[in-house]
């Protein structure tokens, strides 16, 4: 292949990698957000927020 077509092929492969990474990272971000705001986690996380305020024994 010529250097130009070689570069295009590499760029296309890189595009796939970047696309898959974008989907994976976005999914994990949405996952963390859903987990943090999931109603069943509310009580546990609200209690966790009070940890620094517990008196030092």
């Amino acid at each position, binding site marked *: 292949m010529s250097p130009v077509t070689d570069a295009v092929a590499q760029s296309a492969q890189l595009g796939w990698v970047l696309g898959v990474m974008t989907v994976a990272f976005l999914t994990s971000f949405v996952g963390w957000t859903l987990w943090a705001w999931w109603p069943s986690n509310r009580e546990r996380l609200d209690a966790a927020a009070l940890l*620094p305020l517990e008196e030092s024994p």
Partner: protein
Amino acid sequence: MEAAPLSAPRYDDASVRRFITATVLWGIVGMLVGAILALQLAWAPANLGLPWTSFGRLRPLHTNAVIFAFTGNALFAGIYYSMQRLLKTRMWSDTLSSVHFWGWQAIIVLAAVTLPLGMTQGKEYAELIWPIDLLIAVVWLVFAANFFGTIAIRKVKHLYVALWFYMSMVITITVLHVVNNLALPATLTRSYPVYSGMTDALVQWWYGHNAVGFLLTTPILGLMYYFLPRAAQRPVFSYRLSIIHFWALVFLYIWAGPHHLLYSALPDWAQTVGMVFSLMLLAPSWGGMLNGLLTLRGAWDRLRTDPILKFWVAAITFYGMSTFEGPMMSIRAVNALSHFTDWTIAHVHAGALGWVGESVFAMLYYMAPQVWNRKLHSVSLATTHFWLATVGIVLYVVAMWTAGVTQGLMWRAFDEAGLLQYPNFVDTVRTLNPFYWIRLLGGLMYLGGIIVMAWNLYKTATSDSSNALEA
């Protein structure tokens, strides 16, 4: 939560006291060297004509002292203090705590000797020569072992968000330090990096930017999430937001390093990746800033009387300003003006003096009375410190912003014939000189504030038992 009862002496506060003492002492040294450098830039004879006292050798001493000695010791003090209380357990190993403390001080002393002697790797913020780098790796792993050992023996199941921020520092700094310092030693004081050319530059700025991210930002944010609720006596505004803040911040930060290499030989796409991730960083950064400021909801009136809250609010505000400015400066068109100018110096000092410094002072004023079991010697002196520090930073930063923009505009100015309007570099230097004196004044005020704090904390620690917190 799932806490077991525990008596006070079971916490290792001796280590916290040591790290606080080291923070104050190295803070004075680091800021003093900074003031000397400011004087040298305003008045060249202050270089004294000696190699050991020249700007080029003292500058890395200043940056290393402030980043690794002042901030490093402060981080360790805050982490040792807060993690024991959040996990309701003593540090895993007193021996490792001691080795960590004395090992870290030995590294700082070695840096203070080798840098003025001109022994350097020539990598910004990673100047120390390879034997010291090995010592840093060992001491850091000692800290890491103690940190994770303490988590393993914890008596509280939930890892509060502050601990996640600390963890990100422990893990990421290990990777950054080892990868960036891979080198082949030639002699005891000289080595050659395993990378070359653009690869070396990219690795260096992947390290440099994330040293800022994971030593000066994430751990301080973690400390904010512990010490701010303690000082304000109310929980963080949104614990859920703090979780998203953490994951978004650590994910985005690690990719932003290439913004230090805009318009360089680095491939264009990599520069763009750095720029885009820097811009995206604005979201979690401001999420964290708002989470901090909104934690004070209903407690704003206490700002009138409580210097600790004053320091926190100023620190978080500077964090917001710096994390807006940073992404803007990573945009190519803005960077074309700001790069290599004093604008960068303004940016880094708004972050270091404003965000990091004022957060550290807030922590010290909170922790010192607790670990020495004495009431703070003087609230009014702490308030004086706050105003000295804040006005000092404003003078410093405004002077350097003005100098930087002036410098950038002069460098790119053309006359009617299309020639450089200021072809002689000295033209800009002479124009900037008055701003350098203002910078020195601001720096001296900041240094003066730290000396006031040192006196205040010394009097606190040495006062008699009639001044005890639980008298």
